[in-house]
């Protein structure tokens, strides 16, 4: 790792100021950034640690409205009893990230700001129609995830929380890479008052996306059988050492079916 200057921010406002130092980067759980720095894929001059900021902690549930602070860990999301009551699918999704030690450190804000094309949270937030709250504004998930490791975040803008209305039904199913635990394909489906949404991670050449085919089939009938014979186009899907685009296209249909079955269970 190259030399770096560490700063522990005492407020979001201070973190925004500290981010103006050289080529500074935000540090939350560090489960992606620190490995990237160790391999010198990332070499920020300064790190601004926001992981201990009280304002960014915890899951709040009020009726059907869920708000999760950006520095809330995957472990906290996966074990939150209030969340498990209104949206067990998201708690379940968080329990599938990495391994226990990674879940103790990694955070929801870090995951979505990084927008890894195989990360789980982007699919969940897109399917939940979540709102991403930043130090400057609120951004709809549909406009937040822009491509591989790209988001709508501007220079110096910090994710502070995410918020969504718990849908009537939801589930996530992922086919994991057995070594990295990242999704080769992950599908998050929801059925709420605004209809059906299905988001796919791990598969898109351009990162997380909503599947029109799955949403159209499920809008008519929210049942796994509605996806029988569904053909997901392989165009625009990733091919790599783990899986070809055709294989991923098939997996999307399989994972979507399992997710719907689980959401209806």
């Amino acid at each position, binding site marked *: 790792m190259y030399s*770096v200057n*560490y700063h522990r921010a005492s407020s979001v406002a201070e973190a925004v100021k500290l981010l103006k130092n050289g080529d500074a980067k935000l540090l939350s759980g560090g489960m992606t950034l620190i490995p990237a*720095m*160790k391999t010198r894929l990332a070499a920020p001059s300064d790190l601004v640690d926001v992981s201990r900021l009280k304002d960014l902690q915890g899951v709040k549930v009020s009726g059907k409205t869920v708000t999760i602070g950006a520095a809330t860990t995957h472990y906290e999301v996966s074990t939150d009893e209030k969340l498990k009551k209104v949206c067990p699918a998201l708690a379940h999704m968080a329990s599938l990230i990495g*391994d226990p*030690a990674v879940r103790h450190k990694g955070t929801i804000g870090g995951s979505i700001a990084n927008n890894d094309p195989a990360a789980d949270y982007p699919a969940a937030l897109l399917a939940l129609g979540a709102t991403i709250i930043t130090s400057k504004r609120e951004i709809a998930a549909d406009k937040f995830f822009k491509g591989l490791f790209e988001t709508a975040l501007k220079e110096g803008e910090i994710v502070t929380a995410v918020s969504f209305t718990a849908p009537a039904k939801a589930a996530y199913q992922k086919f994991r890479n057995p070594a990295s635990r990242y999704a080769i394909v992950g599908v998050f489906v929801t059925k709420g008052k605004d209809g059906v949404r299905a988001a796919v991670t791990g598969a898109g050449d351009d990162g997380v996306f909503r599947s029109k085919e799955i949403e159209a089939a499920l809008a008519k009938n929210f049942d796994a059988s509605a996806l029988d014979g569904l053909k997901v186009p392989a165009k625009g899907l990733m091919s790599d050492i783990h899986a070809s685009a055709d294989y991923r296209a098939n997996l999307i249909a399989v994972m979507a079916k399992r997710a719907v079955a689980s959401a209806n269970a």
Partner: protein
Amino acid sequence: MSDVSLTVNGKRVSGSAEDRTLLVHFLREHLGLTGTHVGCDTSQCGACVVHVDGRAVKSCTMLAVQASGSTIVTIEGLADGAELHPVQAAFKEHHGLQCGFCTPGMIMTATDMIARHPEGLDEATVRAELEGNICRCTGYHNIVKAILAASETMAKGAKGKAKQAA
């Protein structure tokens, strides 16, 4: 350089380290606690697992300065003098180690796992919870046995204490 202050295995320690110093290197090289191992150095193998503020984390993927102010428990902090911690005793009893390289991380993961599952553990849960720890000697069979046995011993111990208190 930054000052790093920690409580490690019940003792307050402090030192100065470069900001890029990983927690595992601070423990090993500044504090001489070499029980915590560096295996893969890519947050996969779990040989470096320690407890930070009561939670198992991979100390190769955390800066020492990030941990400053925290309470750390390493493998050296488990035994009570000459008396092994129940998880250590169970690993010995059930042959849960061969070369021993992964063992400190396995045991720190196991103690965290048992603490998080006061309702008790089953084999499937133990295997799933061990996915962040790799053993390259012989597999996981005896490690799983040891963790299940330790979990039972510790649950009995807790009940015994509760009875005594009552």
